[in-house]
């Protein structure tokens, strides 16, 4: 009987804790909706699709910020995922045992650096390097792509994306590393027994098994990239425009909120910033949902294929 009461008490405590999380999320959304109402009065769709952002005349649109957030995050994922998976493979499969602790320590250190330090490093090291070396080179070889056109100013989507790539690299690589450790040794041994080389064993046995986990790791990284504020605002150029070129200056959702909220006094301006927060929340929610579906699909995939 005593144990029974204890169990019920315990489960109700856990239920309460779970409920609190939902409650907090709900309250955040509710408050954002309330605060953003003055700005969304002209229509939520217009707010989403309008590019103009002019605090003086009170005309607010979210499009250039949404675009900037998505583009920088996409660049970050495109750069960070291959590097992180390579790092994780090095740590779990290929690397000499002597080096492994050194490399994994370095990766953990990357995760501990505050984002404002990344931003300063970006401003003083990455941006000049991009302007003097990387962007002119990209322009010479890939200048025919609209992605690499326009004057190389260093600041912009590319700088923002690369900073984010460095910042999400520890997350993705350490999670991927853990995932690779769960791959049963028998799979590798089986591949070797069939005469596979080390690379073939990784490609045909290890990676397919780990694919859902790696995808999950990438999405964890993406989540961080979407919300990152300080480092991005220091290198993205902070101009609410939309350009196809990665060299151009842009703006991101968290950056504009951080920049303008402290000094925004009009109800419409504050409302518009709350609206942006709501949009960011929506994007994160959407991607999270998408991630769950994808992970499930991929998890089912190889089992069926190999059967």
């Amino acid at each position, binding site marked *: 009987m005593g144990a029974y009461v204890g169990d019920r008490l315990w489960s109700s405590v856990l239920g309460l804790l779970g409920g609190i999380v939902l409650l907090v999320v709900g309250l955040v959304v509710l408050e954002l909706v309330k605060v953003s109402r003055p700005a969304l009065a002209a229509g939520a769709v217009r707010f989403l699709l309008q590019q*103009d952002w002019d605090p003086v005349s009170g005309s607010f649109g979210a499009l250039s910020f949404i675009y900037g957030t998505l583009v920088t995050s996409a660049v970050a994922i495109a750069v960070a995922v291959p590097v992180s998976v390579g790092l994780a493979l090095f740590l779990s499969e290929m690397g000499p045992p002597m080096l492994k602790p050194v490399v994994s320590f370095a990766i953990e250190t990357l995760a501990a650096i505050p984002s404002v330090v990344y931003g300063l490093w970006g401003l003083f090291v990455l941006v000049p390097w991009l302007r003097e070396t990387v962007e002119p080179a990209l322009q010479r070889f890939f200048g025919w792509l609209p992605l690499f056109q326009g004057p190389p*100013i260093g600041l912009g989507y590319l700088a923002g994306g690369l900073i984010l790539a460095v910042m999400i690299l520890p997350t993705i690589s350490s999670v991927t590393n853990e995932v690779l450790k769960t791959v049963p040794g028998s799979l590798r041994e089986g591949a070797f027994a069939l005469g596979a080389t080390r690379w073939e064993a990784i490609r045909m046995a290890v990676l397919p098994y780990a694919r859902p986990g790696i995808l999950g790791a990438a999405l964890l990284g993406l989540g961080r990239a979407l919300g990152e504020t300080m480092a991005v605002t220091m290198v993205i150029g902070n101009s609410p425009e939309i350009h196809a070129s990665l060299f151009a200056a842009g703006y991101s959702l968290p950056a504009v909120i951080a920049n303008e909220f402290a000094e925004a006094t009009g109800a419409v301006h504050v409302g518009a910033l709350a609206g942006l927060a709501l949009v960011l929340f929506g994007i994160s929610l959407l991607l999270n949902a998408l991630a769950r579906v994808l992970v499930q699909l991929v998890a089912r995939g190889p089992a069926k294929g190999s059967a």
Partner: protein
Amino acid sequence: MKKSCVALLVMALGGVARADGLLITGAGATFPYPLYSKWFSDYNKEYKDRRFNYQSIGSGGGIRQISERTVDFGASDAPMTDEELSRAPGVVHIPTVMGAVVVTYNGPVQGLRLTPETLSALFLGTITKWNDPRLAKDNPGATLPDTPVTVVHRSDGSGTNSIFTDYLSKVSPEWKSKVGAGKSVKWRVGLGAKGNEGVTGLIKSTPGSVGYVELAYADQNKLPMAELKNHDGFFVKPSIGGTSDAAIGVPMPKDFRVSITDAAGKTAYPLASFTYLLVYRDQSEKAKGEALLRFLWWAIHEGQASAAALDYAPLPKKVVAMVEKTLESMTVQGKPISLASSR
């Protein structure tokens, strides 16, 4: 259980606040924060029973908090608008010191000189090369190369932005109609950087760039500063003296809500502004209200002496005399108190 925890917490916090004497809380502008913290500590040394807690959360936050009466005083770089005042009736502006904004650059010239027309053309994006004839005309004798100009502005809403855009709106009708004045505006060209340090970092690392920062920040970091042509047609270097002079050349309204950019006077520096403390004309708490008024009196007299050392411009005598009148007209629980005697 929960309730007793909350009660304990409240008691603990209350205990801290009550620890010794009177605690006066304020919030607002970041620009005067270094000076205010010196004032608060100096004042506390003289009057041990009065302590201050100031949160530099930005002018917008200061206005919001004084309007909601969550603090005893607010602080703002830009005066409150009529709309903001209507939501906080009874708030008085007390100018404390003055600040200036300087145009800094990473360019091919030493001692760059700019007329208002050239400055607005730069920030409107109609001047794109350093060898533009307008820049050449302002800087006779300088060799200007055919290299691009990169414009840098503050991306975060700030008093600095408001001074700079207010000035450009006064001197350029095109700026006024296309951009306007405000803490955050829609910039026509250029890159945005966060804070004085962001702008400085970007300018230092970008050859051919031009931007603007606070005088105090530029001075402490030894940044090159452009000379600006003022209202009377003289080129003036940014300076503490020139900033104070700007307040003399402008007719001063009784509530001090005035822009002093582009002020008249030979020596007036055109990018200057007051910074204000915001207090209610009638103080509702006796001890706190009296202490606050006496502190304000101290700030516009003894306090002014420490301004210049921290790169703030002291108030001109004419303005001090006006602020004295305002302070004397203020009341605590409906009754005036005598301030001059507290000196």
